[in-house]
């Protein structure tokens, strides 16, 4: 029983790290611009596809003998290059989808985000066709048996890389000048630009960072489940959005924790109940949490001063 529990704990950690990485993107953008980037789930998908392209290219180079690359280095390079490339997708989405709508009602921006998501999916479908493509196996799977709990090296890698990225983001936001500008902007995006902090640059950078994290999540996901399809971002995107809300609007720590929590809920619900009930129970739990804690775990109560 205990091994069963730990087995699922490992799976939940892996599953939760995907949610957490994506949820971070939602939460950061919300922190700065007070809106949710509904195209974010599809940026996750685009990141996975870019990762596929990069990985294929690198393995082709390596096998052609042009450069001698060990497998782990191919993976690291794939992640880094894809994160870099995907951040431009994020910036483009900000530039053409959200910047013209900065003064518009936020619901309009939400609609634009949804539409950009559809365009990204369709463009992918048009470019690569409707077939599912399989991600090249970059690392050989090794299974360790720790007291009856089976852990693969992939799972360890995924959890470690995710946590490293989250710590890195945290350090970036806490330590650097840009991170400070982002935090200031999250505090007040009317006054802070007047102090000489360039709103557009910060907004673009936030999108770039969020998209890079989503790309990392995409590649890690592809390493674990190496089948890609153009609609893979939808379910993940919405669930990560739920996690971002659950964590509290704009709270980076909250998004991380809620991402993991969502992973745990889903895995453990599937462990106890038939898997068809997974969504039903997971969303019911979320609904209950939000009814009793409407501002999420770390969100600022938004009308605390007023009883209305």
């Amino acid at each position, binding site marked *: 029983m205990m091994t069963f529990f730990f087995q699922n704990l490992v799976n939940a950690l892996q599953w939760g790290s995907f949610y957490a990485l994506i949820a971070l993107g939602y939460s950061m953008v919300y922190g700065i611009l007070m809106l949710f980037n509904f195209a974010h789930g599809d940026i996750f998908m685009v990141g996975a596809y870019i990762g596929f392209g990069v990985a294929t290219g690198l393995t082709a180079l390596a096998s052609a003998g042009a450069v001698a690359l060990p497998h782990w280095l191919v993976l690291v390079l794939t992640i880094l290059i894809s994160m870099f490339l995907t951040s431009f997708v994020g910036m483009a989405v900000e530039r053409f989808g959200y910047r013209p709508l900065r003064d518009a009602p936020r619901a309009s921006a939400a609609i634009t985000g949804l539409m950009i998501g559809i365009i990204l999916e369709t463009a992918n479908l048009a470019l690569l066709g409707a077939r599912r493509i399989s991600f090249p196996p970059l690392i050989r799977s090794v299974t360790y048996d720790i007291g009856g709990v089976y852990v693969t090296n992939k799972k360890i890698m995924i959890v470690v890389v995710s946590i490293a990225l989250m710590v890195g983001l945290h350090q970036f936001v806490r330590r650097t000048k840009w991170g400070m500008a982002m935090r200031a902007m999250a505090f007040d995006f009317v006054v802070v630009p007047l102090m000489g902090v360039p709103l557009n640059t910060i907004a673009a950078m936030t999108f770039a960072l969020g998209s890079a994290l989503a790309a990392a999540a995409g590649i890690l996901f592809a390493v674990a489940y190496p089948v890609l399809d153009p609609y893979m971002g939808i379910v993940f995107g919405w669930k990560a959005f739920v996690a971002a809300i659950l964590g509290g609007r704009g709270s980076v720590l909250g998004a991380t924790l809620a991402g993991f929590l969502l992973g745990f809920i889903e895995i453990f619900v599937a462990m106890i109940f038939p898997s068809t009930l997974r969504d039903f129970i997971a969303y019911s739990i979320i609904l209950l949490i939000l009814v009793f804690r409407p501002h999420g775990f770390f969100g600022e109560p938004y009308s605390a001063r007023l009883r*209305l």
Partner: protein
Amino acid sequence: MALLKVTDMSHDFGGLRAVNNYHLEIESGEICGLIGPNGAGKTTIFNLITGIHRPTEGAILFEGQSIVGLQPYEIAARGISRTFQNLRLWRHMTVLDHVKMARYSKLGYGLVGALFGSGRCRRQEAAIEEKARGLLDMVGNGRFAQQMVPNIPYSAQRRVEMARALATEPKILLLDEPTAGMNPEELAQMMRIIRTVHRTLGLAIFLIEHRLKMVMERRWCDAVDGK
């Protein structure tokens, strides 16, 4: 018996005591001013009386009945109406609709009537429209009736708030700095309106005004209630 009687009212925001042991008695038809420096808690007193905040301690009696703990709309429907210091108008509604909206609690046609446009609904809508136009004329806003609120001048917006507050048929009117940001001409007009309202409708008026000079010199107030 006093129309509005507040005893020992205190309110804390977190650890900050914003209002401390406040007392007030207003008789029907009386005008009373509330003065004090910025941040003294004048608007908080209004918010406590109108039910936006619930006082930490103390009692508020209106016509002899306690109104502590009632929802703001219930308090408003009993006859305490107010204006806001920073205008709180509805951006996408016409001036006329603002005044009609304040008749909400007096509507007698119910949801079914509204859905099917019953005769009763149409008659009542016509009646409140007439009443609303009357009030708009009274505050000198008749010509703006069909305008959207953001399109009319600032002082006219203040008068819309006034007409809107009157449309709830209050027994006491709480005015939160009714002349803030007005030029002398507009100020004189607003004061004329307040006097007219006081005289013709016989309301009690409780107003916040921190231009001490005005409160004293123009002999508006029967009692000045400082802090």
